[in-house]
């Protein structure tokens, strides 16, 4: 009897070096021809043991590690951590700090979505998008740097407030052999005033930019062909799979922590929560586009308030936050508190606290347990990307291999966040 050729499904590794795999994701795809039979995401290549590290670091020392989880929405990670610690401490956060945090959170949301939409389009073949979104990201990176000193890993939020108040001037371009005085003057126009002026200028320009993105993508037939009806998740399945954020709202479930469990000053903000209809990649894209517009609205409201209301940006309880430098150098109590905070760190009362925020990617939560010591007993991080990635199989099954790229893109995956 002639031996029949054995027919097996073809298995390929998508990543961890694939340019569209977003970082170090390894996706093992089982293919029947071009059709995905099974998508098996492998994670852990960016695992740094942040949760375990936190157990050997003081409460303050853990903070900069949070920046490095979702390295596209740094301040949001810090935010959840600070909220958890503050909840354990029962610490008061000055109102101005709350506004700053909300503003920076929304700036971060825009940053995150810009990256997502840009790279998502790039992955699918729309090369130009990423150039435009990164142009705007550059402005927001300057905001990050002006306020914290770092473009990415800000370490700006602190339990009890934020490290420093917003600066009252922006760094400016200087004339050089590529840019004459006139060009420099034009570039510096928005940089004449304070940081708030700069952000305000951005918020004024930004809606037009979003229109441009939509011009390029929303109606684009290729974009639609690649995204409409791809990776459909029903609202029930989205809930069952633990989706949060745009992934959940894209499926039509109206759930936003900023509305449902308002933290900081979100209850004072006017904004709308966009939801999708079909739960496919296209709807999620639309949700993100609209979220950027809404974030822009919130930033504007924060700017208005922040302009009117100067004040402290970090608690004056020096058992939680170090005193200002000038006082530290003049007062004994302040010096002792400064010394102890930076060596031993603060002792957090025993207890447990969970704090979650509406992270650009979904619900980012920090569950902290303190045994009363100067280090966390245990920190558990709920990263939004993890359940989203876990649903890859369900979303990709039956699609063509090229759709895997669209699905990974729509998940808004950052492995630093998933692997922790």
């Amino acid at each position, binding site marked *: 009897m002639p031996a029949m050729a054995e027919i097996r499904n073809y298995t390929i590794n998508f990543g961890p070096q694939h340019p569209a795999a977003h970082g170090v994701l390894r996706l093992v795809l089982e293919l029947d021809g071009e059709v995905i039979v099974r998508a098996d995401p492998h994670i852990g290549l960016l695992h740094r043991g942040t949760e375990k590290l936190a157990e050997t670091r003081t409460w303050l020392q853990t903070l900069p590690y949070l920046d490095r989880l979702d390295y596209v929405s740094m301040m949001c990670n810090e935010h959840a951590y600070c909220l958890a610690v503050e909840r354990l401490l029962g610490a008061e956060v000055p109102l101005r700090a709350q506004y700053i945090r909300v503003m920076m959170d929304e700036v971060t949301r825009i940053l995150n979505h810009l990256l997502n939409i840009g790279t998502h389009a790039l992955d699918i073949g729309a090369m130009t998008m990423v150039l435009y979104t990164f142009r705007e990201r550059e402005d927001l990176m300057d905001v990050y740097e002006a306020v914290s000193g770092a473009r990415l890993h800000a370490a700006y939020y602190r339990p009890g407030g934020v490290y420093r108040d917003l600066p009252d001037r922006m760094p400016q371009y200087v004339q050089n052999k590529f840019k004459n005085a006139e060009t420099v003057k034009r570039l510096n126009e928005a940089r004449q005033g304070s940081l708030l002026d700069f952000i305000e200028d951005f918020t004024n320009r930004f809606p037009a930019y979003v229109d441009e993105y939509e011009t390029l993508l929303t109606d684009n037939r290729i974009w639609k062909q690649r995204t409409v009806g791809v990776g459909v998740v029903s609202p029930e399945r989205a809930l069952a799979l633990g989706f949060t954020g745009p992934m959940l709202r894209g499926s039509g479930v109206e759930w936003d922590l900023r509305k449902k469990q308002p933290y900081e000053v979100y209850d004072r903000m006017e904004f709308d929560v966009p939801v999708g209809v079909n739960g496919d990649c296209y709807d999620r894209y639309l949700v993100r586009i609209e979220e950027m517009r809404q974030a822009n609205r919130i930033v504007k409201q924060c700017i208005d308030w922040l302009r009117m209301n100067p004040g402290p940006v970090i608690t004056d309880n020096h058992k939680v936050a170090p005193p200002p430098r000038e006082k530290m150098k003049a007062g*004994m109590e302040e010096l*002792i508190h400064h010394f102890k905070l930076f060596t031993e760190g603060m002792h957090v009362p025993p207890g447990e606290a969970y704090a979650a925020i509406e992270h650009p990617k979904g619900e980012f939560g920090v569950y902290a347990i303190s045994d009363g010591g100067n280090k966390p007993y245990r920190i558990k991080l709920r990263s939004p990307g993890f359940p989203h990635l876990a649903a890859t199989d369900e979303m990709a099954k039956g699609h063509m291999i090229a759709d895997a790229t669209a699905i990974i893109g729509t998940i808004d995956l950052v492995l630093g966040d998933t692997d922790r």
Partner: protein
Amino acid sequence: MAKIEIDGKQVEIENGRTVIEAAHLAGIYIPHFCYHKKLSIAANCRMCLVQVEKAPKPLPACATPVTDGMKVFTASEQAVKAQKGVMEFLLINHPLDCPVCDKGGECELQDLAVGYGSSASRYQEEKRMVVPKEVGPLISTKEMSRCINCTRCVRFGQEIGGIMELGQAFRGEHAEIMSFVSNSVDSELSGNMIDLCPVGALTSKPFRFTARAWELSHRRSVSPHDSLGSNLTVQVKNNRVMRVLPAENEEINECWLSDKDRFSYEGLNSGERLTKPMIKQNGAWQEVEWQAALEYAAKGLRQIADGAGAEHIGALATPHSTLEELYLLQKLVRSVGSDNVDFRLRQSDFSADGKQAGAPWLGMPIAEINTRDRILLVGSFLRKDHPLLAHRARDAVKKGAQASIVHSADDDLLMNVANKAIVAPDAMANVLAQILKALAAEKQAVVEASVQSAEVGSAAAAIAKSLASGERVAVLLGNFAQQHPQAAQLQVLGQQIAALCGGKFGFLGEAANSVGGHLAKALPRANGMNAAAMLAAPRKAYILLNVEAELDTHNPQQALVAMKAADLVVALSAYKHQATDYADVLLPIAPFSETSGTFVNTEGRVQSFKGAIKPLGEARPGWKVLRVLGNLLNETGFEYDTSEAVRDEALSGVDVAAQLNNAVQGVALETAGAGSGSLQRVSDVPIYSADAIVRRAASLQNTRDAEAPCALMHGAELSRLGVHAGEQVKVSQGEGSAILVAAADDRLPQGVVRVAAGHAATAGLGAMFGAVTVEPITGGRA
């Protein structure tokens, strides 16, 4: 018993105790600075203010006795407000020194300021300044402005150290802690003041600025110096011992530590450490690999054992060596076929050998010293040899005990001594016989004829009377008595005195492992030679374990001659020392901090410890070196993997408690003479010369206790010789002599000259006891 309530918790505590003690019992912490459980109550820091029901104002918890039904609130609004207020006042004058202060990170003031103080300062005015002081090489008092006047150090001096070296002068804002007219602090327990200081006013000079509290890992260990076996916390950074603090053990060292135990760690980091094995070839020292050095030593030993005979091999160890080292040393020597092994290097009278019922020990648990009501100390430089046992004796005296001493020197013990008989060394046995005779008379007991012949003097009679009236008597023989040429006689007499008054009899013990040496059988048992005999009749080969022959032996002169005459000297030592003159192989071994091991202290407590750090350079733990030496000699039974295995073998089948026995039988009492009348030597081993590690502890060597030895004599003796104090004299003994400065000490008996042993300056002299001559050097004013 009083029932009180603290923060809603019921506590029952006996009347007369204080609220702070009751709170401690209930597990409630009340902030405090001046209160310390071992010191008297001063109530001057006011930090422990608490609210007491029905009291109109907050009361200091440390000074408020409990009363039945009392209700105390330690965290009520009133209490917290009071504590906050007190903290603010304490910080008003505190300088902004935290960043440069050594106490930073382990400072009680910092901790309580964060825990109980306000978080912002309101004080704007000038802070007070206190002029820096200088009180010696161990304690830094450069920053006395940091002092919060809790007076713990002052009370420590008065109550524990026995001498008030620091005191508080002036009043109010001008109050400051200082020594009396710029005296230095010389107490051998002074380091404890550093521990007690709740702020950074008293800090450790050797440790100064070298590390922060949070960088140090803490390792438990046991002191290798005196026989107490104090528990240590060795603090380590980067494989280096940075400092040593006490580990609390109520039964041994309480929470204290003698300066010797505390500061000797500097010797561990000394530049003199031996870090590579060395052998001498053609008169020149060469660094070699371990294998080569060990093979060289093994070959040499084997040649001598096979050629001249194993009895030509002798092994000497210091009693500071660990139980494991001593056990393996004796096992090695015995397996080669020799019985010549000993650790009692400073002993001179071995006539009790073989007649001892067990290992000489303290005769009671250490903590029992505090409860004695009569203490007879025979031949002991107690304060310097056993600083913390002295503190316990001091405590007993404070509680009403009568202390009596029989000795050849009358150093101040910093306690009330009821009676003393200070006589020349050769008259000590006679004095004890007198006491025994008088005591027998009191107790209507019969004594031997040799005792009967003694004529009871007034001092002896007084001592006997004191002892007879006691209920809990202790007769303790010190190092001097053990090193005495008539040690066996003193032992028998002491034992009989103790027996007559139903008391305890014991030896204070010379070193960390004096009892352990007996348990390890590191002494001749059959036909072997003891330490003195081995040196008197030079052997062809010596194995030296931690021994520096010219400093650690009873007769350095003789020891050096014996070493130089030997064909092979294998020296296991942590240090390069004078052995380079006479040794042939130098094997670097690890001191206590770098090896695991066991010390058996004077009360028979077996304390094992682990190495705190890795051995320096190529040094290796002594037990490993001896084990491999045993392998290379092709002897069986040297297959140990751990020091615990060695210890377990050494102690297997040994009931340590049963082994401890001071009884001696078959030593005939001789009729003790009243002294020869010729000039004799009295020698102490100065506190900071007693072993190899302290001898290299730089800061300790700068203390007053480590000053170069003098020839101390009674004033009358000086004038008889025609010398004045401060002049140089030549002290001769046997064939050697030393040029020393003469000094007067009228508390010494006449007919003796006190010359310290264990010091390089006196290493040329002979035995620690015996006749010496002193002649003035003309025109030799120092």
